[in-house]
């Protein structure tokens, strides 16, 4: 099993020096709550974040919002690969998104946000913006 350790989120631009620049990691669930190749959604502040654990154990976090239908559903898509890279397919109208970059592979003009995610002890934490 390999677990990806993302760099902590950068401090928001314009943060005065000396302010709290430490990453704001939010624990959302236990690693074992995640089924391989099945997403869940975490509510962090106003943000709905779709979390995925791939077959080989890597963690990914992207926005839950499906830009094509407007519904908050990407966490409920099927997880798989396209050309070897991990993807999720929207359950609404079946567009494919890269888990690593958030890019929509069927429409280069569209992308969803990605979020840092890490494992801390047994807990999964996402880097909230």
């Amino acid at each position, binding site marked *: 099993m390999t677990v990806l350790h993302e760099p902590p989120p950068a401090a928001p631009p314009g943060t005065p020096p000396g302010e709290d620049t430490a990453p704001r990691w939010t*624990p*959302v*669930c236990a690693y074992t*709550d995640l*089924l*391989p*190749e*099945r997403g*869940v*959604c*975490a*509510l*962090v502040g106003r943000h*709905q974040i779709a*979390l995925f654990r*791939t*077959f080989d154990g890597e963690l990914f976090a992207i926005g839950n*919002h499906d*830009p*094509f*239908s*407007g*519904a*908050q*559903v990407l966490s*409920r*898509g*099927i*997880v*798989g*690969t*396209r*050309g*070897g890279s*991990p*993807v999720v*397919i929207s*359950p*609404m109208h*079946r567009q*494919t998104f890269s888990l690593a970059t958030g890019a929509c592979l069927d429409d280069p003009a*569209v992308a969803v946000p990605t979020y840092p995610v890490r494992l801390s002890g047994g807990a999964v934490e996402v880097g909230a913006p």
Partner: protein
Amino acid sequence: MRSSDHLPAGAGTRLVVVGHGPAAARLTEALAAGGFAGRVTVLGEEPRAAYDRVALTSYLSGRTAEDLTYPVPEGVELCLGRPVVGIDREARTVTTADGHTEPYDTLVLATGSSPFVPPVTGRDLPGCFTYRTIDDLDAIRAACAGARAGVVVGGGLLGLEAANALRGLGLTTHVVEMAGRLMPRQVDEGGGAVLRRHIEALGLAVHTGTGVREVVAGPDGRVAGLVTSDGETIEAQVVVFSAGVRPRDELARQAGLAVGERGGVVVDDGMRTSDPAVYAVGECALHDGVVYGLAGPCLTMAEVAADRVLGGEAVFTRADTSTRLKLLGVEVAQFGAAEGALDVTFMDPVGGVYQKLLVSDDARTLLGGVCVGDVAPYDTLRPFVGRDLPAAPGELLFTGGPAGLDVPDDAQVCSCNNVTAGRVRAAIAGEGLTDVAGIKSRTRAGTTCGSCVPALRKILAGAGVEVSTALCEHFTHSRAELFDIVRVRGITTFSRLIAEHGTGRGCDVCKPAVASILASLGGGHILDGEQAALQDTNDHFLANIQRNGTYSVVPRVPGGEITADRLIVIGEVARDFGLYTKITGGQRIDLLGARVEQLPLIWRRLVDAGFESGHAYGKALRTVKSCVGSTWCRYGVQDSAALAVALELRYRGLRSPHKIKSAVSGCARECAEARSKDFGIIATEKGWNLYVGGNGGFSPRHADLFAADLDTGGLVRVVDRFLMFYIRTADRLQRTSAWLEQQGLDHVRRVVLEDSLGICADLEAQMERHVASYTDEWRAVLDDPGKLRRFVSFVNAPQTPDPSIAFETERDQIKPVLIPLEATR
């Protein structure tokens, strides 16, 4: 070439057609298509509009007169039940039997032919019939009801068809043929012998080399038997004469038009008779010394005449009289010449196969052929008649010829509709056609007798449009191949399957397909272990996703039958959870607008009240709709509601390549619309007729009659086999309609009814396992805390509803408030 005046073709012309059979129907259709601006009046003798006589026999196995009837183009004045009794060529009028006189500028005779009845004593007794019209079939059916045995006089193509019909109506059937073999016009002696064995094996008594001396009456004055010219007496209550046809040229004769010595109205290449104002088309016409008794040439004549009436210069040339038929499961085909300098014969008396190719004396040009038992060479070689053989004749017979034989562009593939291979190829390339259905609708090829459909399929394959059967980038196999791999190798997980037979980690195409295969093979609950990750969102939440990310709930209501108490429970649940409520098109109730975390609460209430999952979300059995049937309906002949409930309970939860729908109607009025279903059942006096391959949706298709008058046990067995065979072999997301078109109805019949692949016991056992292992998916979820935990909007806030979901009220119910897309992108 059309005349180049600017008036619409035929403006002001009064065109009268005598007879309304297939030829007349094609004529009026071609005139309409060509923009004929004159007046068209058709005077027909039969009480109904022209129907497909080629498919006549299917009327006895469930197709209705409407099914067989051709559409009548707009503007055509159709007068039915009005035989024409005279033509006055001077005055240019025709007179009908009821004394009406109709003027014409152009007259078309399309009177067809009538069965020849040999002049023997007793031929008019009640119980004697001919086999040509729907009225004939109605009369035969009525007479067979009280009869034990029947004799068909004539062992040709139509005689065997009639014999098949009598057998289908439950009679012990005899065929009497004057010639030394059956189908003497199509097959030679060797072929006849093989054919005879096939026919006899099916229980028909064949008497060749003998004619009819007389038909004898019983004490009730009805037919009691037939005495052959050998003096043998065959006991029978029904006699059908099918000893050839005679062109109906009596009107032409009486009007002084030229007729042939042995009958037929003489026409030229433009279908004109000896009077330029009068055309003749179809089976009544004599062209170049030949009267054609096949639909193909008759329809071509109609098109030629229409073109001429429109000012064109089309010509009719000697037509292909190839025939291919499938009777009682025996295939017989003849094409091209009946004699040649050399012949190459292949004979397998054990397998019941006889094939002969006739070739020129240098053995290079194909002249014709005869096939009995296996007609593969017909499909491949018919277009090569008169051309260089594509391979050595022996090789062609043994191997069916090299794969991908290139039929020349100018060769005719469909003789019924006169369509060349080139035309089909052009349509494939020009319109991007990918299936036979497309070719049929664009070119008409394959729409009449259907015998060219295999050839069409070959052309499709040859054009390289054969859609790859690979499921997706992760598997090079088709769904059917994966099904076999999983079944034969006993694979139970996607991970093992993709590791051993695929690449990558799957996608939204292969994962649900494999999930469905595992489920069809009894893989346990669809959310167990790794299987959960294969399901698309609907199966994953056991509900249908809606546009705002909420789900719908559809409890099963077997057969659409529901008690008041249960109805009240549904109402209470909908009210308490604030759901939008709608009666679906599937005779049940949809509750919409549930958030994921509400689904288990809703289902707790429903399951406690005795409801179970309706699988509206699954590629599985949906509904078996029913009508009220014999319990309530004054017309009902069987208890359709009870059968629908039983079938829905039997097949509930059955996962399949696509959804499966069914319906049961209590009588032929068909209130349950069974013929639009994957399998539909219509009650008969004697039991149930089973129809398969129906579809609503994108490409509606009426189901085909599969088996008739089954008892309930027999019906269930056939449906078990049919469904399991479909589940094993269909492509992903292929409804039974498309699957049936691909497999061919006859093939599926052979597999399911005659067990030609020897797999029926296996199919039945597989269905029994499904029935025995069925459990309600929703109840299982409610009983499993691990599965229940997944029904939350947020993993870190299980109680919090998704704040993006909002509703407003419309017509007193909720409706989603959708976030405008521009704002979200």
